[in-house]
């Protein structure tokens, strides 16, 4: 089936540094999402993105977070500067439409902030 890829699979950085998480969504999908999952807990919505713009973001999407998809390439989540509480697994998802259209999830990037 369709696959979403995420690079890297793991990232360890020092607090205060910048990190960029990359997502290669399903090729014909139009809607893109980031979710955050702290180990063993539920996934929580961060942000969604359509037509080059952020459509909705949650309270977890702090000012230090930003997303973009330059020239239809990777959909990225940048955190600058990082904080200890940013340690989590970040899942990217994409969908063709909205409503009950299936969101396809990537395998996640495990971010550890030291």
């Amino acid at each position, binding site marked *: 089936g369709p696959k979403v890829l995420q690079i890297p699979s793991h990232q360890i950085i020092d607090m205060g540094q910048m990190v960029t998480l990359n997502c290669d969504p399903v090729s014909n999908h139009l809607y893109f999402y980031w979710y955050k999952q702290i180990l063993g*807990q*539920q996934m929580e919505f961060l942000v969604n993105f359509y037509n080059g713009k952020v459509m909705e973001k949650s309270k977890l999407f702090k000012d230090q977070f930003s997303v973009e998809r330059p020239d239809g390439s990777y959909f990225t989540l940048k955190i600058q500067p990082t904080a200890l509480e940013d340690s989590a697994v970040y899942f990217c998802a994409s969908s063709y439409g909205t409503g*009950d259209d299936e969101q396809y999830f990537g395998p996640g990037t495990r971010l550890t902030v030291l």
Partner: protein
Amino acid sequence: GDSVTQTEGLVTLTEGLPVKLNCTYQTAYSDVAFFWYVQHLNEAPKLLLRSSTDNKRTEHQGFHATLHKSSSSFHLQKSSVQLSDSALYFCASNYGNEKITFGAGTKLTIKP
């Protein structure tokens, strides 16, 4: 506010037994879709079932669920669990918009 509630955090069963994972919700929206996602260890969540039609049973891979708007529920059931069913199960809803709101998840462990 809108929410999805899963009452069981951990469920442990012996292979071959039936399972029911509870999911209830609270929302002011009438036009909503509900999902069950399954997440195996160190893998991405995958869609297991979805429904937006009241009182219609949906089935996939031996699991089934029926959306009951009268009781605000979308419970997941299977008549006979297998070892490979061990995973984290999330109930979720889109609540009429593009983001998905997940429940806290139920960790299902199947023993031989």
